[in-house]
């Protein structure tokens, strides 16, 4: 048996500081919103000429007077991703860019992907993304409130917040792009983290019924240990799947799988080190759950 409970205080302190740092990062540095949420144009192109590089592309885009833009390599040697922030792009802007690129560089390009999101749509997408995440947190809170006592809901929700905030904090720290698929990833993280917490809580409750003489501090430790191998095995298989998406699933899914990988790691950690210490803090005992049973 591993004494997880010995480190409750230490890890709570670490978690708390990570959350604070994340909140600071989010409010001071902010997030790197992609075209979906900020509006603008995204072009993924493949050059047929091997000599074309980021510098030459950057030069020719600069001459087009498109305002702020960003050119970077995208996976392959000859694949590039260009983001243009200008919001009021006209319907034929892409056509003009195609023509100008051919005249300034000469080589033919394959426009593999073009995304053009107007300011109104991006604002709506951002709003619905935020609502989706808030709604899922609320739904989880509600579900766990029905299934368990309020102390458990509080613990589970704090664990969720912890995972979501730290994942977003890391995205801010490394300047990773937030797009629609990241919202999907965050929601899945919420589901996964909840899943993990619930399995341990289920065991805590079962043990509370069984043992009246064991303090919650010890009891959480027993429950964590009893479910530990499941926790680890599921994390491993999920991570195996995610790492395989990250490595082989193509550039488009990289951000999504990376967010999920972070989420699974933090989700696993928080269901041990956030969800359980909360129960200890709230002095959960056999009475807490027996009240419900007699009701």
């Amino acid at each position, binding site marked *: 048996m591993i004494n997880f409970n010995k480190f409750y205080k230490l890890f709570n302190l670490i978690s708390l500081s990570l959350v604070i740092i994340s909140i600071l990062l989010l409010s001071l540095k902010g997030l790197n919103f992609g075209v979906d949420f900020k509006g603008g144009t995204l072009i*993924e192109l493949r050059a047929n000429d091997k000599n074309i590089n980021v510098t030459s592309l950057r030069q020719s885009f600069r001459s087009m007077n498109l305002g702020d833009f960003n050119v970077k390599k995208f996976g392959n040697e000859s694949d590039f991703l260009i983001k243009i922030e200008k919001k009021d792009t006209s*319907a*034929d802007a892409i056509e003009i860019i195609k023509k100008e690129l051919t005249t300034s560089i000469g080589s033919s390009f*394959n*426009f*593999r*992907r*073009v*995304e*053009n*999101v*107007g300011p*109104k*749509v991006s604002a709506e*997408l951002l709003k*619905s*993304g935020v609502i*989706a995440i808030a*709604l*899922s947190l609320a*739904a*989880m809170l509600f*579900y766990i409130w029905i299934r368990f006592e309020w102390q458990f809901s509080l613990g589970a929700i704090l664990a969720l917040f912890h995972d979501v905030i730290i994942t977003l904090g890391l995205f801010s720290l490394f300047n990773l792009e937030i797009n*629609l*698929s990241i*919202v*999907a990833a965050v*929601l*899945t993280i*919420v*589901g*996964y983290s*909840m*899943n993990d917490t*619930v*399995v341990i809580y*289920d*065991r805590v409750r*079962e043990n509370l019924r069984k043992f009246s003489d064991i303090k919650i501090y010890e009891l959480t430790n027993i429950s964590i240990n*009893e*479910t530990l191998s*499941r926790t680890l*095995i*599921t994390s*491993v*298989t*999920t*991570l*195996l*799947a*995610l790492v*395989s*998406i990250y490595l*082989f*699933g*193509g550039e*488009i*899914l990289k951000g*999504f*799988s990376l967010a999920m990988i972070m989420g699974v790691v933090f989700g696993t950690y928080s269901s041990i080190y956030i969800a359980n210490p909360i129960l200890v803090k709230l002095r959960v005992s056999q009475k807490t759950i027996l009240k419900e049973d007699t009701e």
Partner: protein
Amino acid sequence: MLYFSKLRITLVFIVALFFIIIASSNFQDSENSLISKKINLGLDLQGGSYLLLEIDNEPVVIQKLQNTTTIIRNFLKNKNIIFNDLRIQNKKIIFSVFKKDIELVETFFLDDESEINPYYSQYKSHQFDIMIENDEFILSLSKYGLIEIKTSSQDQALEIVRRRVDEVGTNEPNILKRGNNRILVELPGLDDPMRIKSLLGKTANLTFRFVTQNNNDSFGTEILLFEDGINEAMVNKRIILNGENLLDAQPQMNNQTNETVVSFTLDRVGSKRFGKATSTGIGKQLAIVLDGKIISAPIIRDTIASGNGQISGNFTFQSATDLALLLRSGALPAPLNIIEERTVGPDLGQDSINAGVIALTIGFLLVILFMFIKYKIFGLIANITLLVNLFLLVGILTLFEATLTLPGIAGIILTVGMAVDANVLIFERIKEECKNERNNIIAFDTGYVKSKTAIIDANITTLIAAIILFFMGSGPIKGFSVTLAVGIFTTLFSVYFIARMLTGLYVVRNKEKANII
């Protein structure tokens, strides 16, 4: 209990086989297989264009106000009611009447059978809200009046958009309403939406009007630019003909001038009007105006009674074809703006599919290898379950002809990773039970029973996330939520029916074996 009737075993086997056959129909030529159903590939996988159009209803509202003003003027004149200062101001129609007439005029507007202010019984509201201040009537479009205008212009626009897209001839376009002022156009397989975009970007409001030099003409005049944006001409506001009078329009080569023109055929009313205008107006210039710009303004040399004519104007063959197409499909009720566009080329789509398949294969192999090493014989059972689960998932998506997107593929891979969770929960529980229970059958039964709540809870939480994603997410993300949600059900089915049966068969044969798991 761990004993299963023959019937149950057969049923489970049939269900699994059924979905395996359906799932595999995706990999066969549709002509050879029994089931012709296939998973639809999303635009991000098969390539194509997604366009979200927003209808600019401003002009429609202004037109509505102008029409209503005319109606009110004629109506009050007919009723011999004296009114003053009828005008449109800040999108409100304002006029004043004598004090004695106020009550009478009010009933004209508030009557349920009102001729000038239609009553929508389904909304319990008139088209216009009425306010009376002193002797002034102030009419503004009611909430439902505005909704009526929006939905009707959306209906019309949808029809015109459909006609235009059909005329271009892309395969299986998807044209849908979104909200009450948007239209979604999905064009699978189209990697360059430029032509469609330029066709949808034009209102195509065609009018024939006389050019005039005298700005005191009745009906009023306005100065319009030519297409070249430099020359201009003064034209009468009176419309001789408009696009609605056209029966047909085709691009054509004029043999005499060697110029590309658009030839048109008018309907009966149009022919009559055109004949009359061309007979009275010989020597005058007739401006052909499209969306507020003059295409050309030929001089009338002869009466044209046949109802056939030509529009010339420096066309290339392409631009003449496009103009003919626009004229045939009719004018949009209001301008459309493209507010979102997403286009994926077919080769990127194929690359995404390949990458997805590789990731799925590797992810699957890693997971089954891990499970086998960890649980040996039970790992094998979990792996068989997982494989069947995968077929069930793909089978159900096929059966409902769901749309598979790139995030959807990610959802399938994720399901592979998370699906073993239920089996792991059960196996771990059984392990614990085996410590105190010598009889393997009882240990297994207890294991299944005791792990149930955790499994249900765990899956419901993921399902909640998936459902919210489905309702809040767009396009590709919806595909992710669908595979995630379907994956939960197939996982539960395969764990409780297939895995449980297989473990049962094994345990019954090894009742007394120590350290069975």
